[in-house]
Every structure is written in structure tokens, then in C-alpha cells.
């Protein structure tokens, strides 16, 4: 039986289309935490100004600086999915991965002092499902290629300012 090599996936993101419905946060926390818990969601919708909401989550940089930065080897890259996996028994919540991330994307779980990073739900991301279902199409699954995904790892402020210009016009950044 010819077995096709399993391709890694990546979540493509078109941030300017985000409606701010935060269903991704609901789906993520229901999957990982078994309750609705926006602050414990691995994908977080920021609204630094109304109208420019966007989801902020792991971009899976090709060189994984967060994994490199972890002093206790709590972070690893999943061979099956390419996602960053947090060993919460080992994680000491030091925050070095946050500083190493160009987008300051990882954040601490509100209870328990452990870092949270998108794990692609083991290969079947729940956030993408709800975003697709609602036809917002901000999130979409594509095969992972050999690209500079690091470009997507940006801080909430950087993203918000750019989106504000895109959506509100030349002086839009003043609203952030």
C-alpha cells in the first residue's frame, strides 16, 4: 500500500478579516480546558482599538527561537505536526520563551504558571473549524512549506498599528 508522506500543516491567517467574534477562543478553551476560558486560550483575540481585532497565536517560526530559549527543555517540536509542545510538568513559567518570540506570543496560563503555545490541537485545529464554519475565513489550513513564517510572529502592537492603517486609513495608528 503506497503511503503518502503525511504533510505538516500550517494555519494561514488573514487578520484584516477578523470579525472579533472570538469563537476561536471559545473553541480552543473548550478543547484544551473543557470550559470557556478566553484567557487560557492558546489563540487570543486582541482588540487594541475597536474594529481591528485579530487572533494572536504561534506562527511556528522555522528556527523555533522559543524552543531554543527554554532553559529547562520544556519546549519541543512535534514531529507529527510541527507544533511547539509544552511539557507543563517541566515548564517553570520563567517567560524566557516570551522574550525570545519575535511576536511575544506565548503567555502564561492564568492558573498554574505554565506557558501556553498553540499545539495545533494535535493536527486538527478547532479554531480553524469555527472560523471556517462562520465563513469568516481568517484562519485556513494549508500545507506547511519552506517559508519565513517568522514574518507572522509580530507583537500585538505591531499588528494593531498596521491593521489600523489598513482599515482606517493613513492616520489610523493614532487609535491604537
Amino acid at each position, binding site marked *: 500500500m503506497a503511503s503518502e508522506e503525511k504533510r505538516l500543516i500550517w494555519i494561514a491567517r488573514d487578520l484584516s478579516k477578523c470579525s472579533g467574534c472570538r469563537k476561536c477562543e471559545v473553541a480552543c478553551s473548550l478543547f484544551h480546558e473543557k470550559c470557556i*476560558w478566553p484567557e487560557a486560550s492558546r489563540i487570543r483575540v*486582541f482588540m487594541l482599538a475597536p474594529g481591528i481585532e485579530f487572533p494572536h497565536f504561534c506562527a511556528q517560526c522555522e528556527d523555533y527561537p522559543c524552543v531554543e530559549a527554554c532553559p529547562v527543555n520544556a519546549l519541543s517540536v512535534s514531529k507529527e505536526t510541527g507544533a511547539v509542545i509544552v511539557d507543563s510538568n517541566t515548564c517553570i*513559567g*520563567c*517567560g524566557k520563551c516570551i522574550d525570545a518570540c519575535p511576536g511575544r506570543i506565548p503567555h502564561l496560563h492564568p492558573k498554574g504558571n505554565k506557558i501556553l503555545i498553540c499545539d495545533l490541537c494535535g493536527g486538527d485545529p478547532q479554531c480553524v473549524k469555527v472560523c471556517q464554519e462562520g465563513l469568516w475565513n481568517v484562519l485556513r489550513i494549508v500545507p506547511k512549506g519552506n517559508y519565513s513564517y517568522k514574518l507572522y510572529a509580530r507583537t500585538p502592537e505591531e499588528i494593531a498599528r498596521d491593521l489600523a492603517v489598513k*482599515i482606517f486609513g493613513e492616520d489610523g495608528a*493614532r487609535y491604537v
Partner: protein
Amino acid sequence: MIRGYAGKFLEVDLSAKSFKEVKFSDEVLKDYVGGRGLAAKILWDRLGSKWETVDPLGPENLLLFLTGPLTGFFPGGRICVSGKSPQSNGVVGSTVGGEFGVELKCAGYDGIIVAGEAEKPVYLFVKDSDLEIRDASHIWGLDAKQTTAVLTRECRELLKARYPQKGEWKEPSILYIGPAGENKVRTAAVAAKWSHAAGYGGYGAVMGSKRLKAIAVKGTGPLPEVADLEGVKTLMQEVCNNAYESELWRRWGTGSAGYEVGARTSSEPVRNWQEEWHDERSFGVNEFENRVWVKQYWGDFGCPTTCLKLAVVRSGRFKGAITDNPDYELQAYLGTNLGIFTPEENVFMASVIDDLGLCGIQTGNVLGFAAELFQRGILTKEDLDGIELKWGDAEAFAALAKKIAYREGIGNILAEGTYRAALKIGEMKGVDVMPYAVQVKGIGVGAHGIRSEKDYPEIYSYACSVQGGDHTSTACMPLDDFRSELMMAFHDSGVYCYFNVFGLSRTLVFNFYKAVTGIELTKEDWVATKAMKIIQLQRAMLLLGGPDLKWNPEIHDENPPRFYEPLPSGPYKGKVIERTRVAEEKRRYYELVGWDERGIPKSETLRRLGLDDVDKALEKLR
């Protein structure tokens, strides 16, 4: 403890600068649910005995921000704002969309009760159980967009400084007032996210009277545990699937009504309701979509419909104006009602109203009223401090809106809202201007007229509503009709967005309530006992009224005089609502809700519902 609730409320006394936790018994929560219902209960219990003397804009009034058990679970998050209304002197359950209610529950509170008044401007900062009354002198006077930007930055910096390990903090949810609220303008809103407003009731003025500029909340906990998580998930999916099928509703939101209600049902206010018909295709929602919308789908927490849209004027005189859609109500009240028929001018007007922290409906109502007085020569250019208030002149209306927000000149009178302004101007000019005031019990009528009888409100809907002209709470028969205010009281008490209910079975919301709380509640029981109690409480406080005005149901359970003029144009030209029909329907309605022939809740009604103290209080009105 009942599931779905955080289990405690936060009470803030701004005079004493103190906080305390308040809890309500399971019985109270079962009977009054949350939001609007619980607001009526809290206000009656704490202010009922002295209701007539409580100044809505004085320190005695309570300002309530209440979630409901369904907030955060039922798709489309909202928060209910209430208190003694400076518009009706009764109680309005005024809800506004956004994440505030969800954030509050995640912080561990089902609601916030604000008492007293601060000495100087403050804002309230809530991070879970860390509570702080903070100085707001640097944001007092700022408009909606400035206030939001400064507070968002300031609160995120505060969070970063206090919890440095956490990583990037998401912004807190913020409710605020603009300059209009600060100046106690009775048409001021409590607002969120630039353009979302709890407008009906005038609670922006109450917030301003307490010198409370804003409340910012960050809750890091989960939403409360529910009784049946799988059931909640299934019902959430059902609500969403239903919404996803509604292409028109999702694509255009209420905006499609801007042409529809004008041209087809002929029930849209045009030039202060002198007409209710227009056939201006320039005002079709497709024009808005193509010319000003920069985001087609914009929504609040959990919403599958995302009926909001983001609008920006991209060129011309009003370049840079930003608001949402505008939705139907503001297309009407800041458009057709002022003789304005282009998307760009409409967006400009809405953005001015947002920035000042005004309610677009109530302010559009009073602006239209003023313009008709100008048209009739009752108000002159001199009276209006040089403003030539001609129909369709967006800049003139914007200038007058600013005067209202800052209570300058004629603005000081119009800031009292249409009814009170009509009393004052009538006295000033020696002319009865009440025929031009399109309001019921101090509340401007929403943009759905009754004259064509082709829109959803009935000919007695506003006259009999416990929230006056509020188009989101209309009296309808039978009492379990989906438009009835007894059913609306469920949405406003569960506190979620009613727009996500369209097209669903009418028992679904009660099934949802059971899945969240574990409590069985039928539609029949809701209407016959629980909603009935809420409506009687609201009616009692509305009729007790005071201190500046009291309503006599024999006079004030009535449509605005304009609604008895024949429709002058459109497909229903010449159609007249006869007073005898309204009187007959009113009698039938009174009977159904257990009021006497004068509209006072009967003793037997109140006693059957266990509201003996309300019965005693109403004796003086009988």
C-alpha cells in the same frame, strides 16, 4: 449555588470609596434571572419605598451593570445597564453588546452595583478580585475614541507592571461615557467599543452624575461552570447554524431596513416623522456596503451573525469619519429623520454622536424635533445660536449635537430630551409643541412606526410598554408573542443578543437556560409568573415616577400625537390610526397583564404574584 452564575456581585460606593460583595439568594435569581429582571428587583428593594423622591441624577440612584446566566454562553455577548432612568423616571433594562459581561463573569462577578457619587472624576479598574477606584481627571472631557485609546494603553501598562511574568496582556473590556454623559445630558449613553451604546434610559447621564468616567475589567478566570456542558455546546451550535443560514441578515445586518422600512413597510421616521416613507435608493444598504464599509463582518463575543460592519468615509468633506454600519436605527434617526440620505453624511453624523457619547436614537429624535420647530418658525436661527437647522444639513445637525453634549445655549434645553425640551420650549414660546414630540413617557420612539401597520410594533405597543418608546421592548398580544415585552424581558434578563434568536424555536432559549443553570423553566411559566412580576415592578416604578415628572396612564399611555395624523405619502398614503381602536386594544392589553381600566396594576394581580408591598405602594395611585 445555581450554575452559570459567578456567584457574587460587586458593590462600589463611590462616596465612601468602598467595595463590598453582594449575594442574592437562589430564589431571587430563579425569579428575576439577571439583567433587566434583577435590576427591577434590586431597584425596588432598595429604592422602592422612596422612589418618587429619588433624583435619577443624584447620589441616591443606583447604577447597575448586570450580566445574566446566559451571558458568554448564548452566542452574542451583552451587558445590561440599569437604574432609575432620567428619561422615564422608571426602570429601563438597557443592554449593550461587547465583551464586558463575559470579562466581568471571568473576573468572578455577575454584576456591579454602583452607589453614591465620587467627589472628582474617577474610573473603576477591576482585575479579578483586585479592585481600584482610579483618578480619571486626565480622561474627563475626552471623546469616545480618545477615552478608549488612553484607557486601553493605561490599563495594559498597569497589568504588565503588576504581573510582569504573564506575557502580553489582552486589553480589558471598557464601558465609558463621553462628554454628553459627563454633562448629564439625558440622551447620553453608556458606551462600549466606540459605537456600541446602551442608549435607552439615559444611563450615560447617571454615570456622569456619579463622576464615573469608565469601568475597565479584566477577568482571568473561566466562565462559570454550567449544568450540562454537552447540552450547552449542542445548543450553541444550533444557534450558530441557524445564523449561518441567514445570508441577508449576516451580510447587511439591520442595515437592509434603511431602504426596506422606508420604501416597503413605510414606517421609517422621515423629517421628524412628518413622513414614514421614502424611495431613496441612495440609501440602500448596498450603497453603504460599497461606499463606506471597510469590514463586512464585525461582531461581539461568540456572535455567529456579526451583523455589525465597520464604516469609514474615505474621501470628501467627511473623510476620516468612522462608525459601525450605521445600523438601521441610526440610518433612520441620524439619516432620514434629519432629511439626510447619503451614506457618507450618515456615517459622519453617527461618528459625531459616538464621539460625544450620545444615544443616536434619542438624540436623533430630539434633533428632528428641533428641526421641525425651525421649519415651522417656532425656533429661529437666533434661538439656535446662529445654526440654520435645515433638513439634510449634516454639519448643522452635528453642530447642534455638540451644543447638546456640552449643554451650550439651546443645547442646554434639548439636552433634557424631547419631552422635557417640549415642555420648556412650549412655555418659552407660548406655543404647544407637544404635537411634534415623537416620544412616549420621556423616551423617544424607536425607528419603527405604527401607522402603516406593516412593521412589527402594534398600534398600542409603545403606549403600553413599561419602557416607553423603546422599540426593543414593545407591548404585544398574546403575551408570549415573540415581540412581546414579556419575552424580550427574558433576553434582557438572560443577557444575550436577541438578534441571534431570529428563526429559532421559541422554546430554545428556555432549553438553553436549563442547560446552563440546571433549572427547568417553561415559556408558559416565564410569561405567567416571572416575566409578569418583572413587568409589574417596572410598571409600578414607572407610574410612581418623580421627582420632576409623573405619568398619568390615562393621559400618557398614549401614542405621540403625530401617529394619529394620516400618512402623507407612500403606499399607505392617507392611512389613519383611529383612537378608538387604540383605546380598545389598550383595554384588552390591560386585562391580560392584570391592570385596571386606568392602567394601574390591580391588587389581585400583585398579590397573586407575591408583590404585596408593590400593591401597598400603588394604593395612592388608585
